[in-house]
């Protein structure tokens, strides 16, 4: 396989597979927030704040995988 093709594959696989876990995590987190707000609507504001915090922390995991893909793509062999 040519190195260009391998690099392109590496970047694509890294970004794609790395988005599976955080996708599940973010969906779970937002679902729990909705559930909590449905149980106690007066806590909605606090729950929303905590959701944003958790959102950014789990979103970051996608970028860990993406960074390695970018490293594989742009560094010389």
């Amino acid at each position, binding site marked *: 396989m040519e190195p260009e093709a391998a690099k392109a594959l590496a970047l694509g696989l890294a970004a794609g597979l790395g988005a599976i876990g955080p996708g599940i995590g973010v969906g779970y987190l937002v679902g729990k927030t909705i559930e909590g707000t449905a149980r106690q609507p007066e806590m909605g504001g606090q729950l929303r704040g905590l959701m944003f915090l958790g959102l*950014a922390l789990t979103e970051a995991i996608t970028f860990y995988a993406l960074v390695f893909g970018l490293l594989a793509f742009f560094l010389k062999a």
Partner: protein
Amino acid sequence: MTTATSSTPITEPDLVPVPPTPSPNDLGPEQQPGLFGKLFFPVGALILIAWGIMIALSDPVPKVDFDPTQEFKLEPLFGTYDGFFSINKGVVYLAIAVLGSVLFAWYVNRKVKGSLTQNSKTQSAVEGVYEFAFDNIASALPAGKLFNRYMPFVASIFVFVWLLNMTSFVPLPLNSHHNIGDVDFIYAFGVYAVTSNIFCTITLAFLTFLVYHYEGVKAHGFVGYLKTWSAGQKGPVLFLVYPVEILTNLVLKPISLAVRLFANMLSGHVLILLMMALAGIVGGAIVTSIFAQTAGVAVALAFYLFEMGLVASLQAFIFAVLSAIYIGSAAEEHH
């Protein structure tokens, strides 16, 4: 005494006037479409016809080499000096953010010393930002001396990173790869995110790294601070716990702080560039390229608004809050 005789007409009591019953197909007065509804289909049809004519009369779009890394290269703007003090577009954006932060802090200082009433919009906006930083970000710091010492640090990180992120969506004529016309030093408009440079974010994360280790050592002593990395366990399980804790505290915390901000900003800007360049990448057949252009510009606009509205502010907030949490947890007392 008058009695009702047959000559006076018998009047029925006043009835409430009943509107005529509408037929099932009638929309009713409050459901008639307004101006937007009346214009939607005719204007939409006209737009589609114009689009079709454009497709029919246009040439195929040639494929171009899409290289987004050129947008993120830093070249000196004035002259060819490329050393430590050279001015490039990153430096200009950084100077704007620094100026904004300093002006913000100076404004807060001046207004707090003066009157405490909210008598202008700027004052309430600035005080709102200060209160946000005080309540939400610095609340992660434990109360007491640590709060007093590091609340300005954490709030400054928030304001600085927020300004860096927001100004990265404002185009300035600093794009040294294309010039307007043929004049050499009138650069084209371009956008550059300073925080999409790993060196910027790692410098900010390094500041937090220094601060929280210093506070940890100050609160517990050097050996005591290393002992707080035992996560409350005792005995031989520490052989498993300590490598993980050392890796987390020395490597993962600052690196994750830096990479989170860097990758969010970089990927946001690269996605916007990619969507705008979609037509050039797809190329070839007329229909697909026109469709790619239209869809690309629309999606690029959506990404732009999403990034500017949500991701920029959220990432600045997360950076500041995590810095506060790390400082607080490094200096907390034993369980």
